[in-house]
């Protein structure tokens, strides 16, 4: 088998602040091939965004990668100098962010913001860049693209702005696109449009897409595979279908169950996952989900489970996966929703 396009191995990230050291990412690994659509799902604070920032090398002053490697085109990105990494960022690996309102520079025209990427990485001259920018805007579905190059971000609606961000990201035809909660700040109807756009772009460009979100509905529509993240680790990985139909990790099960459904009786209570996200300054022994888990056993508290293959292409990090157990003393049976 050929080398994967991007290979992340045991990535570890820490934040060093004056008060405490924080451990957002505690060893994650995944591979990407061209055309892959990978979803990373988890609640706020699980480390999903931090891991991609680390990958891109834009962690900021207090964040440091303390372990692991990111192999892209036979180089470990983590070992590159900033100058070398700069030629990868925006060009080979691109990223779009959650809030298009604040992620665009308010005092520059969007035309400028797109052409600067083209001119920096592809050395285009002004005219060529402008033309290309108009083409890109058109491609992402902005009407009267050429006319809108001179407009400012505040003159666009939220959905349009996100399209602009996508245009900026794919300008240099990157191999990998990381989308960090791209639809969270948008209306539901616009969400669908943006996701459609992403899907078609992935197909056209043959790039790999990493879609980070807390919303299961989003991955269901777009991602072929999904990794569920909790407390800085992947707790379950597999095809999206497998995860939805046969969730193995209690957390995954909890996530699925907590989505309100139209076909349940109106009086049914919303399901929640009890407890709250872990304190990131502590590293606990044992499974980090144990405090909130209905399936926890003694072993869960004692030792941290590693990802194990429980079915072809489907792995889970759990001592007591859903399909093989019954929660202690609980009337609920493990199973699917």
């Amino acid at each position, binding site marked *: 088998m050929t080398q994967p396009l991007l290979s992340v191995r045991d990535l570890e990230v820490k934040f060093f602040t004056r008060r405490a050291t*924080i451990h*957002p990412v505690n060893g994650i690994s995944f591979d990407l091939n061209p055309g892959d659509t990978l979803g990373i799902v988890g609640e706020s604070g699980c480390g999903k965004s931090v891991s991609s920032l680390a990958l891109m090398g834009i962690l900021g002053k207090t964040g440091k990668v303390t372990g692991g490697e990111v192999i892209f085109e036979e180089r470990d990105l983590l070992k590159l100098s900033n100058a070398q990494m700069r030629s990868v960022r925006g060009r080979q690996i691109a990223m779009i962010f959650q809030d298009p309102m604040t992620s665009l520079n308010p005092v520059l025209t969007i035309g400028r913001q797109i052409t600067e990427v083209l001119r920096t990485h592809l050395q285009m001259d002004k005219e060529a860049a402008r033309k290309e920018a108009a083409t890109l805007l058109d491609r992402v579905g902005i009407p009267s693209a050429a006319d809108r190059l001179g407009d400012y971000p505040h003159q666009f609606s939220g959905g349009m702005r996100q399209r602009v961000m996508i245009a900026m990201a794919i300008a240099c035809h990157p191999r990998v696109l990381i989308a960090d909660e791209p639809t969270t700040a948008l209306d539901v109807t616009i969400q669908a449009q943006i996701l459609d756009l992403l899907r078609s772009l992935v197909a056209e460009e043959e790039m790999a897409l990493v879609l980070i979100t807390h919303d299961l509905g989003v991955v269901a529509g777009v991602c072929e595979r999904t990794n569920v993240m909790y407390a800085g680790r992947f707790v379950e990985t597999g095809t999206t279908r497998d995860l939805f139909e046969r969730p193995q990790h209690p957390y995954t099960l909890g996530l699925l169950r907590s989505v309100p459904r139209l076909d349940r009786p109106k009086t049914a209570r919303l399901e929640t996952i009890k407890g709250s996200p872990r304190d990131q300054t502590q590293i606990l022994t044992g499974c980090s989900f144990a405090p909130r888990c209905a399936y926890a056993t003694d072993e869960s508290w004692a030792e941290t489970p590693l990802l194990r293959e429980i079915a072809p292409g489907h792995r889970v990090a759990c001592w007591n996966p859903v399909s093989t157990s019954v929660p202690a003393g609980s009337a609920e049976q493990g199973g699917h929703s």
Partner: protein
Amino acid sequence: MSLAEAEAAVLRTDEPSGLWKDAFDRFKRNPAALVGALLILTFILIAVFAPVIATHDPHAQVGNLSANPEGPGDGHIMGLDKQGRDYFSRVVYGTRLSLLVGLVSVAVGLSLGVLLGSLAGYLGGWVDVVIMRFMDIMLSIPGLLLAIGIVAALGRGLVQIMVAVGIVNVPVFARLLRAAILGQMDSDYVLAGRSVGVGGWRLLGRHILPNSIAPVIVQATLAMATAIIDVAGLSFLGLGPANPSFPEWGKMLADSASRLEQGVHLVFFPGIAIVLSVLGLNLVGDGLREAIDPRLKT
């Protein structure tokens, strides 16, 4: 997640404490603010214990009249001035004047400003418009110029410059109060109070004003700093106390400004006194501002 969220995750484990205690703690941890507090305390002590600290009577002539007065030397820590008076004692007694003047001017500005601002904020309507327009006009004339204008109308003198500087301070406090009050008017606890029938003045006095104090305290400290500078400036320009033997720092600077070679100590000591006292106030004012609202990065 961002660093801020990460820090928030850490801070979540702290216990909630009172607002004032929080602010006080933050203030204590700020070295610059502590230095400022120390400076201010020193000056207050000097002012209070002036008769003990000063080595001579500030008005008494102990040396000769001289165009080239002696610099620091035996018996006279800061030398003599042109009238043969001990300079150190004059600087020490000058502290009393400066602090007094600073306090009074700020008091004048604060009380008037708070009154006007409260009226504007609470009553709204045309009262608000008229008052604030007037404040805007006052604010568009720079402080010292306005003060000069007022002194020109009132005549020179210590009281007059205190009033002038006080009046100059009014718009800032008025604006501050009005903003604070308007901000509070929409808040839930005010609406709650009103809904159970708590009357106007009571609401204002018992509830709204106490919650608006914090920025006022910060501003008052900073205003005192500018007051001291402005008053010294007015004295320097010859608009201050008419009595030449008053040891006002600004005046002392003015007297020695013309021929610097004759005695730089004449200029240096009162000037440094001004700088240190104002610096102390600025440091404390800044420290207070940060202590009360640490989110501000200024």
